[in-house]
């Protein structure tokens, strides 16, 4: 990694930490709120610009499209999260999402920086990845994952604003346990079978309880108008994430057909992407049919977030490799 690239990546990391704390602070100081939110947004914009430059520098250093291993894909994920937030903030004026977006980017930076040095170094590509299809197939997937994350996070804020506090806390605990399973799976040698149980068990039980707790409404919290805004934001994220995911899956099929003559081989990661795709297709149908309250839809978007996490990071870290195990480095 060149010094330039290191400096840019660190700038992006540090400014996203800053922006996170400024956004958090903006919720504490009511009378300075506007100003703090503005500073937070500026910091995030700076982080975004620095990360864009870092990724370009990495591409120049490596003399190839810089999206070939887990570390690089995390940089892209953080980039897409910040970029999508900035667009949403401009279009919708959603400020609360800011601290969740910078938190997500920051967690991805942390996760990336804990990866072994071999991931940070620029290494030659394995022959399977030497193809122009790599930059057609992978970026839309990362962008869709980032959008689905933002969609799920908007779901959290929506639950808060709609006063569904009990349900919200359960959902937060669920997602936290799932993240814990992924982190343990990546950085420790805990038996993966246990982690699979932790991830699946927590998700299943947690989400069932969350759905149950939806009936409990705390009327004194939140703001229904904002709840509706976040409902809309969540839907926009998913409505745009869905074509990106579709494009990514299909171009993956075209690549596979081009490289070894079959467009679908039920590889675990492929299948997992299909699961995610089907669950968001279900979301869209629930949505256009409107049989469902928007709080229920928020929870469905959080289920989607869990599935996205599973597809993106869970599969390799929880020991379910397959063809796409280049993300696996142990």
């Amino acid at each position, binding site marked *: 990694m060149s010094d330039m690239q290191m400096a840019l990546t660190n700038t992006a990391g540090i400014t996203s930490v800053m922006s996170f704390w400024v956004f958090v602070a903006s919720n504490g100081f009511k009378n300075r709120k*506007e100003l703090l939110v503005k500073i937070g947004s500026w910091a995030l914009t700076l982080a975004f610009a620095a990360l864009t430059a870092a990724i370009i520098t990495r591409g120049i250093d490596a003399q190839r499209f810089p999206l070939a291993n887990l570390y690089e894909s995390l940089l892209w994920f953080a980039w897409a999260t910040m970029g999508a937030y900035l667009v949403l903030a401009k*279009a*919708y*004026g*959603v*400020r609360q999402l800011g601290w969740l977006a910078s938190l997500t980017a920051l967690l991805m930076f942390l996760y990336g920086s804990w990866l072994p040095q071999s991931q940070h170094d620029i290494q030659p590509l394995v022959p399977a990845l030497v193809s122009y299809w790599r930059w057609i197939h992978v970026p839309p997937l990362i962008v869709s994952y980032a959008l689905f994350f933002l969609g799920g996070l908007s779901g959290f804020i929506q639950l808060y604003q709609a006063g569904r506090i009990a349900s919200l806390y359960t959902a937060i605990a669920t997602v936290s346990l799932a993240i814990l399973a992924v982190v343990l799976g990546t950085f420790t040698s805990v038996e993966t079978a246990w982690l*699979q149980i932790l991830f699946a068990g927590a998700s299943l039980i947690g989400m069932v309880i969350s759905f149950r707790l939806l009936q409990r409404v705390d009327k004194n919290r939140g703001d*229904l*108008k*904002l709840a*509706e*805004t976040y*409902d*809309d*934001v969540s*839907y*926009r994220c998913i*409505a*745009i994430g*869905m*074509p990106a995911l*579709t*494009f990514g899956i*299909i171009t993956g*099929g*075209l690549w596979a*057909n*081009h*490289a*070894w*003559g*079959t*467009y679908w*081989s*039920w*590889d*675990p*990661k492929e*299948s*997992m992407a*299909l*699961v995610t795709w*089907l*669950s968001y*297709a*279900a979301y*869209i*149908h*629930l949505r*256009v*049919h*409107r*049989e469902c309250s*928007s709080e229920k839809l928020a929870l469905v978007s959080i289920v989607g977030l869990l599935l996205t996490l599973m597809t993106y990071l869970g*599969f390799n870290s929880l020991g*379910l490799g397959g063809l796409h195990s280049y993300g696996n480095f142990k």
Partner: protein
Amino acid sequence: MNTESEKIYDPKTQSSLKNALASVQLTIFLMSLTALTVLIGAWCPQDSANGKEKVVEQFGADTAKLLTQFGITDIYHSPFFLSLIAMLTVNMIACSFLRVFPRIKLLQKPLPFLSGRDIGKLPVNTSVALRGNDQSALTALAVKLSGRGFKVATNGDKLLAEYGKFGRLAATVTHIGLLTLLVGVTITSWTGFSGFQPVLLSSHLDFSQSEHSKLWVGKLPKWTVRVDATHREDHPTGEPKQWFSKLTVLDPQGKELKSQEISVNNPLSYDGVDIYQSSWGLDHIILNFNGKEERLDLRPMGKLYAAFLPLDQNTVMLFSVRADGTIKIFAKRPDWEGPRQLAELTRDKPAKLGPVTISLVKVVPVTGLQYKCDPGLPITYIAFGFIIVGVLMAAIPHRHVWVCLETAAPQGVCAGNENKSQEEIPLASKVLYFGGRSVKAKVGFERLIKTLESQIASEFGLPDQKSEKNEQSAGEIHGKVNSSQNRKEHMLAGSAAGANAKDAGGDS
């Protein structure tokens, strides 16, 4: 609340079977069940990809047996999964023909122009009291709307603008794509075949060992493929760079039909069958020991290949084949520190080891050929196109804006800003009412209307209004754009904030 699909498809007038088949609840249930099944398939190693051993290794013999019994190790071919797909297909066909495709007709039906009173009932609406009496505000609004991609139609003092009408075909396009995909996949599974065969130099590839599905009705080709030459190219480091095979297609009588050199990513296509270079190796060497030919099988050893020839209990002869075709001969005994090189052998230079003369007859390479015939592929690709375009279209928000220029109503109740007292609007002046709806991006739409409102107000509005508009913060929307749902409440509260447009859309 009445969605348009319900207008087209009224469950009450249909038989209960039709209702069940065209139910979107069923769709969601089946999709979730399919997702769960695929999830299990992703978790459990599948026979087709890894063989049974992987399952046993991962779960132990007993659990593996149980998983096999329940069909989980081959879940994508299980009757359960196939019937799930069949049910989804039936459900989708029923829905498509009863609910989705009929909407195309609906799109052609023109929408009415609305009066100020009706505009006031729209989910998002507002009004601006104008300074002048002419139509310039209306014209300006029309220009602004078409600048933002709206299709604008005018009728005197009324205007109707629509955005993203095209996006309403999303469901139709996506579903046609999905149905097409099923057709493509079915054609392939009924008539296609595939396989892998390692073929020695000068031998033939035939299709007798190909794999195909249970319901197969296809035909295997009678022609065969001969490997005329095959070689590999290396990087300077010794890593393989590319593999090549020169292939000739022969008809049953042995007539040559086509010749081509293939390499990785550069297959031979003949009669609907594609033949790919998928692996490469050296298979065996034939050596001549004092006039007697002997075949020795080669094994890959790192970047090289080697053959072993045991001489007695302790001594092994080792023939190591280099990339340039020379062979080094070693001997190895347990009491030696490492193998000792005895001689070197090339094609035209035999080696003499004591009384034995060894000469190289030939090195026989093997080329790994993957083949497939996928007659449904073009249809599948068309389906991919439809699906991508369809889901993209689904992201386009569909928006309507109605505008009406009217003389201000005496009570000011027709629409818009209830909190504006009557005196603010001089009776003689005109009021521009506008509002609309958007289901997929409500908040963005409210912002759009708000922006238009303040632009019109500052350009054409009464002065007092102008200052008022400019006070609105650009932050999260608490603004003055009204929602019909909560209008009464707001009148009482004297505030125009808040909206519950959730159910107000009237279309999707």
